């Protein structure tokens, strides 16, 4: 059931650059369990879009099936949404993006939705570098079907049922890098400080921006034996570095030390400053990024933050050379060759 939020306005509420209030980015009231990580991610999406002054009607939000995939109902209520079928969000997003390259596409999926049933579509949206933000709300289990292990559950991790997962887990970030994603980041639903700027950077990226957000399922997988619990994630995450996202046309206020910071210019001109914990780490190197993920794993740590960026990547439209005008804006005069041409075509078949 969806409930509509009562409309009251705080007198101090501010408008963003485009004149929208924060509430213009909110959605219906969530029906997820109280404390579910997914809700915090929805809030972060609202904040990021508000602060980036994205026009709500220029966003399309898409999802598959699962608790996570329900969240598009709970953010950006003024945007068009498409809650599709289990594991198939990427193909819907691909078609939608092909039809109109000018909208911002935010895709939400779960770890079951992406790492199992939707693995194929996930892989191929990545390798085509579809221009979208692909967010996995990763809780290591199938929330909506009552807590079965998912393919991202760590080996040995045990949820509410208590049976340790006997299989290897899939690291979606590592896979995404290998499959051709041009922006890969990991975060935690409980770390808004990190998640909001990551979402903003993803929004300003051209190409597929993949975000793996660990998002504890309080009902089925927040146990002391689970590696996707609030406590475990808090204790074991390790950031690639602190970073700042500076949207285009904003003044740079901080002084960044050369040598310890890496500056990356995003597609839209925004800047990403990464203050690195480790000198040698270069987020634009695919190889170093995969190494870094493996290193952290060896040390029993969960690497978060920006993991890989290829700022100047070509998206699907660039690759297939489509017109810069949205295809859905072309009319009959643009598309139909007419009867004279058809007469000539007939002649070729005589």
């Amino acid at each position, binding site marked *: 059931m969806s409930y509509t939020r009562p409309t009251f306005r705080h007198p101090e509420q501010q408008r963003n650059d485009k004149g929208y209030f924060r509430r213009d980015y909110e959605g219906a009231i969530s029906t997820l369990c109280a404390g579910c990580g997914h809700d915090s991610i929805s809030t972060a999406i609202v904040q990021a879009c508000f602060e980036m002054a994205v026009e709500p009607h220029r966003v399309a939000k898409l999802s598959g099936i699962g608790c996570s995939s329900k969240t598009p109902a709970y953010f950006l209520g003024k945007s*068009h949404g498409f809650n599709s079928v289990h594991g198939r969000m990427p193909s819907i997003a691909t078609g939608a993006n092909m039809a109109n390259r000018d909208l911002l596409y935010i895709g939400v999926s779960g770890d079951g939705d992406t790492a199992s049933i939707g693995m194929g579509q996930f892989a191929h949206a990545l390798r085509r570098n579809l221009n979208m933000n692909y967010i996995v709300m990763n809780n290591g289990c199938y929330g909506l079907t009552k807590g079965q292990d998912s393919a991202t559950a760590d080996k040995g991790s045990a949820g509410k049922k208590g049976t340790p997962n006997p299989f290897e887990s899939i690291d979606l970030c590592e896979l995404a890098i290998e499959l051709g994603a041009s922006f890969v980041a990991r975060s935690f639903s409980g770390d808004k400080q990190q998640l909001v700027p990551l979402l903003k950077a993803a929004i300003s990226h051209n190409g597929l921006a993949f975000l793996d957000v660990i998002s504890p399922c309080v009902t089925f997988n927040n146990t002391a034996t689970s590696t996707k619990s609030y406590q475990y994630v808090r204790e074991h995450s390790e950031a690639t570095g602190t970073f700042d996202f500076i949207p285009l046309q904003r003044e740079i206020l901080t002084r960044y030390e050369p040598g310890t910071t890496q500056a990356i210019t995003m597609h839209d001109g925004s800047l990403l400053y990464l203050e690195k914990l480790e000198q040698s780490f270069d987020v634009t190197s695919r190889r170093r990024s995969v190494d870094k993920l493996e290193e952290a794993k060896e040390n029993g740590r969960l690497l978060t933050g920006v993991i890989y960026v290829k700022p100047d990547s070509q998206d699907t439209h660039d690759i297939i050379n489509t017109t810069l005008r949205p295809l859905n804006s072309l009319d009959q005069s643009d598309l139909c060759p007419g009867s004279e041409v058809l007469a000539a075509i007939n002649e070729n078949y005589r």
Partner: protein
Amino acid sequence: MNRIERVNDFVIRFANVNGSGSASANNLFAQAIFRMGIPVSPKNIFPSNIQGLPTWYEVRVNEKGYLGRRGGYDMVVAVNGQTLLKDYNEVASGGYFFYDSTRVLPDECQRTDITVLGMPLTELCNEAFENPKLRQLLKNIIYVGALSHLLDIEFSVLTDSIQRQFKKKPKLAEPNIQALEIGLNYAREHFTDSCRLSVVRRDLLTDAIIMDGNSATGLGALYAGATVAGWYPITPSTSVIEAFERFAGRYRIEDETGRRKVAIIQAEDELAALGMVIGAAWNGARSFTATSGPGISLMSEFLGLAYFSEVPVVLIDVQRTGPSTGMPTRTQQSDLIAAAYASHGDTRNVLLFPCDPAECFELTAQAFDLAERLQTPVLVMTDLDLGMNDHVSRPLVWDDKRRYDRGKVLSAEQLDALETRWGRYLDIDGDGICYRTIPGTHPTQGAYFTRGTSHDEYAAYTEDSGAYERNMIRLLTKWDTAKTMVPEPHITIRDPQSKVGAIFFGTTTHSAYEAINRLEEEGTAINTMRLLSFPLTATALDFINSHDMIFVIEQNRDSQLKTLIVTDNGILPNKLVPLTNFDGMPITADYITEKLEAGLAVSTTTTGGSK
């Protein structure tokens, strides 16, 4: 021996090896008949293989214009050692067997009721040409040259065709023409009055074209303004997208930039292919996919989503022989039920049935209008025979006054002008079709959440039984509206008194008409209805209601069209008599004639002889 003696009315079968370059020689032959103005229908019977297995090419020449398969072969051209004996035995009594006599005929070939025409094709070819690759190709051209003598094909028509084919590479035309001459000269010297089959120029085809259905379908999508295609390769549908891409490469390039006004994505599987189409259609672009039976099975879940969330998608199903992988390169009309009721839950999809290239073009274009008008999936049901073989057809036509019908889509101005609350699934016109909006249209109005879960009139999630039922019943109202919008059947009443009818569709059409005309000549009138769509229109139902015994002729085992008719309209099953062919080969007029006669005989004995 009684030699078959016929002018402009015979069937010739070529037996070749797949991948040996026989296709262009055989095409040249069929095209020559076409260019002499005589109706002709070539059919490729090919294996699911790239090189080495047997392949046949059947050409029916018929000046009366009967272009379905007839049954039987008056002449066989045998250039495949693997199948030589079988080919020999299949020649009709009194017919002609033409073979490569570089090798002697096996001892088993002792028939005295056929004319055997041996010609040392390999030897002649090797003498004349050095290049081994060219030799293989030209051996086939040599027999075409010989046939021009045996069947009286105008030699200049053949040489003109070659010149036309190699307009851009005249050097290649030379050896081809030389090969034709070698064949012609040998045949002239060695075969005098050997063959009583012949062709005579008739110029019956002044306006006609000869084209494969898939090219026409791809072109139909282009003319209809499709801009997004998601697809996954599968025989026999691949060439629909290839044609679309080919024509788009010519007619969809932006002048100033050279960029493409089309996005064609080869998907990772059929699920994704249809997902892309749904995403694009939801976002306001005309989009489509083309597939065959196995793809329909995979697309089933998504078809249900499009049906229930009311997204206009166009799907071309070029049917092949099922179930499962079946016979991938053989034809059938066996996806009807899977397509009409694709997906779990209560679903019904609109189907269109073209029977020739002109209709492939028109019905595909119309499918886009219907899909958007009805906001539902529309499936164009063709088949391998129609899609991959060349067919003589009236030319493709496009009326420049025609406008794309995008259906009920609200613009920003219309959203502003609304006086009452808009509901995506609110039926205000009573036809079951509601107003949709395209993402990005209006800053504050018209956004909604599309979903495959149950929704109320305002697109909000609901588990309220009443709201769910209202929605499902509205979808039925829409189904009734569809019955008034789909193309009408073609009905021919041969005898208003007759209570016997026949229903058929698609590629069954041509052989069915031929068989029924034969019966009419013998005094039995069967009224006919060629269906162009499912659901059935009121006119179609009238036809069924006004006949007592109706043959339903189709190319599948389980009488799928009959099932659709019975299920969707509550027709008594007993009055519909199945007449099916499901061997994977296009149904023949001989077969239909025989089955109709048998069926009528039974009915005469059981009902006491009413007409």
